[in-house]
């Protein structure tokens, strides 16, 4: 059943496979982000209460959604690495952490910038904001653990356990606005059923959402490929790959690649 996956356990195969995917991701990200951002920031109608400042929605909501989905992806990778000890899934988990942390920070900062004019405060310790801040700290902890050990396997194990423990935070973030009274509003789009906004506001959101999805894929692929190379730097195929232009410079060609 899982036979088709087996070749990808080989770092070399995965390295070339992700290399083939990246141009597609780049093209899709460019298309969706340029259409989506122009549509969202210039042409989508302003909200009846919030006016133009509602447009930060198109940055805040995708960033917040991806901050959680990247964490989930990282947890799946960490789980596979802990149980089956795939070396590659460990590399994947460690390449995802900084990307997720960045998007969590974007969600928190854009949220604060929106909260000041709308709510009247930059920050309030309600359940949604606090649990999202904890997510940022989890990311930072995972990143710190990945870099805390000389031995990559040991680092991956420690970071993986923290990642799995932190998964408990995901449903708390998601349902915080339903379980408790919070200042943060409930879900507009990330729920079953009809989004609580009109179609002419929702379509640009979908575009920016897909745009960010592909942008994140590119960044993670880039980091993942670098991680594969640095973890396999002693292997013949990596040496061959990096030294192909028959010149004695090795480090420069690696970066150009």
């Amino acid at each position, binding site marked *: 059943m899982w036979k088709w996956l087996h070749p990808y356990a080989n770092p070399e195969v995965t390295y070339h496979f992700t290399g083939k995917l990246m141009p597609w991701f780049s093209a899709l990200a460019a298309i969706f982000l340029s259409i989506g951002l122009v549509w969202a920031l210039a042409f989508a*109608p*302003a*909200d*009846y*209460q*919030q006016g133009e400042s*509602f447009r930060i*929605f198109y940055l805040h909501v995708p960033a917040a959604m991806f901050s959680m989905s990247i964490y989930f992806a990282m947890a799946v990778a960490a*789980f596979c690495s*802990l*149980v*089956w000890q795939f070396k590659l899934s460990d590399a994947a988990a460690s390449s995802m952490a900084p990307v997720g942390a960045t998007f969590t920070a974007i969600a928190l900062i854009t949220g604060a910038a929106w909260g000041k*004019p*709308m*709510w*009247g*405060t930059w920050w*309030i310790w*309600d*359940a949604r904001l606090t649990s999202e801040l904890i997510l940022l700290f989890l990311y930072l902890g995972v990143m710190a653990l990945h870099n805390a050990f000389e031995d990559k396997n040991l680092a991956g194990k420690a970071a993986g*356990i923290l990642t*799995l*423990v932190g*998964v*408990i935070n995901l449903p*708390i973030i998601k349902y915080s606005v339903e*379980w*408790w*009274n*919070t*200042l943060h*509003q*409930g*879900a*507009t789009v990330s729920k079953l059923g009809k989004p*609580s*906004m*009109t179609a*002419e*506001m929702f379509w640009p959101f979908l575009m920016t959402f897909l745009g960010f999805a592909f942008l994140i894929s590119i960044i993670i692929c880039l980091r993942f490929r670098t991680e594969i190379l640095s973890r396999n730097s002693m292997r013949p195929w990596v040496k061959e790959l990096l030294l192909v232009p028959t010149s004695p410079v090795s480090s420069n060609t690696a970066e150009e690649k």
Partner: protein
Amino acid sequence: MNPRRKKRLTIIAAIFIGLGFVVGLVLYALSQNIDLFYTPTEIHHGKKDSGIKAIEGQRIRIGGLVVPNSVHRDSDSLKVSFKLADMSMPISFNDNDLMVTVTYDGILPDLFREGQGIVANGVLVKDDSTSGFFIDASEVLAKHDENYMPKELVDSAKEKPSY
């Protein structure tokens, strides 16, 4: 699945279930404190599950909708008072709704208007003569709901109050 993998899987599953249980209990124990605010009904009757009531003189947050025609502004200061009722969807107000009066001296947020969700932070005062509750607020925040609408749509729906 070979025995070593099975063992690792069991350990991880056990850690995860145990932690989930612990976190669940902690959140359950803290649930009163995680709630950001009391609703007007909860001030009158206590919290839904636990029945815990806010004590007079306690500093609390209250969240509710500003009742239409209840906003009184002082003509020569920033003092303002308004009534809050429970949030309900679709938005509707009833004279029998339990209400709490909020008094505040300061600048209200831009989103403040009648029918708007508000979270106010202040000291709970009980008026024994009318058995009504007051909040002497030091901070008033606007709560925005999850609905976004273009202005034109709202203008065209103004005639029909339930859009």
